[in-house]
């Protein structure tokens, strides 16, 4: 589920990367031509889509290297967000 959404967001932000034959959940998006600066657009799209803000501690180049890597962070933050809302 998370992976599908993230793949769609990568396609939305970087169509050429998503169309690359090597693109997949394990593909290194930096090797496919995405720069660190461009990655921020993807981060913002993920925030808009999932309704949370990345804390600074989660913002690393490695965390956005692949869809799989992003999914780990996103799922962790979703759990944390749900817990915070449950306790509120």
């Amino acid at each position: 589920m998370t992976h599908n959404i993230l793949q769609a967001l990568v396609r939305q932000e970087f169509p050429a990367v998503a169309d690359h034959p090597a693109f997949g959940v394990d593909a290194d998006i930096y090797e496919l031509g995405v720069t660190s600066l461009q990655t921020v657009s993807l981060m913002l799209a993920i925030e808009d889509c999932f309704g949370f803000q990345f804390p600074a501690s989660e913002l690393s180049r490695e965390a956005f290297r692949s869809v799989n890597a992003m999914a780990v962070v996103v799922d962790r933050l979703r759990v944390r967000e749900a817990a915070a809302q449950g306790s509120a």
Partner: protein
Amino acid sequence: MTARGPTPCRLGAIASAFGESLPLEASPALQGRRRDLMFLQMMGFARYSREERGVAALAGRALAGSIARSGLPASAFDAVVYGTTTFGAQDTASIDRKVARALIDNGLGHAYPIGVFLSQCNTLFAALRVARGLLHEPEVRHVLVVVADGLDDERTRVRNLAMHSDGAAACVLSRADEGPGEFLLHDVQVGGHPNTVDLIDPVTHQFDPQGQARYDQGVRDIAAGLEARSGLTLRDCPQVILPNYTLSALRHLASLAGVAFERVFTGNVARFGHAFSADCLVNLADWHATAPAPAAGARVALLGTGMSFWGGALVEPLATTSHTQQGVLPRSP
């Protein structure tokens, strides 16, 4: 431009001074700019330093720390090489008086001040070169070098893809046989290609391709020059000291110099970001204070850049010591 010293000199008694340590989120330059904030955080920046008392005050505090660290009386210093690239509105009209105050307050009224100010963030290497040259004068035995920079306009704190800090660093250069230095300075080189065009567009953050090519070649030339004159290769250096740029930029610089990124000291990127020309001295001291002692005779490479200036140095650690620091910046973990 290169220079060869007849003998190495000593470099040591490194001290630094910073202002108030603040999180990136506190910067007026980043208000309403989440995209830039996220980029900087992803690139390793976390805090910055703001000093409201001016650049010369920072310099004075760094000088005081260096003098104390050296164990020498203030009267032993024959000259002060003062480097800055940010006079700023509050210092432009009175820089001589403000530096004079910093010198007088530190008992350095007798030491001749020499300003170095056209090398952008490469000022340290230009200043080291001037100071090393002074040691060739028969009457000069110890020279204080201080580089100090800060910003008057908080809106300019984020530029060239880096979070800038107000900060200063000082050190002592002495003749090889009589200094307090923890390092032997074997070589220092500078190069430049003065330019009137921004290397990085402040709006689009895109590099000017010609400028980037020139910048890359400048770094390569400095690295090659250090290797040629030392007979070493930089990849053999146990540590490479760079300014506190984005982690991506540091990877790129390491690649240009032909060294593994793992050998680059990155411990201060999060701590205070890019404090102009002070970065390399502070990083050298912090690395030296925390890392295991390298093998005897090992050389540490320092590389720095401005937008259109480049510099480098090779130093040999002589002993394990720590440097003094004035300010409230939290230590690196």
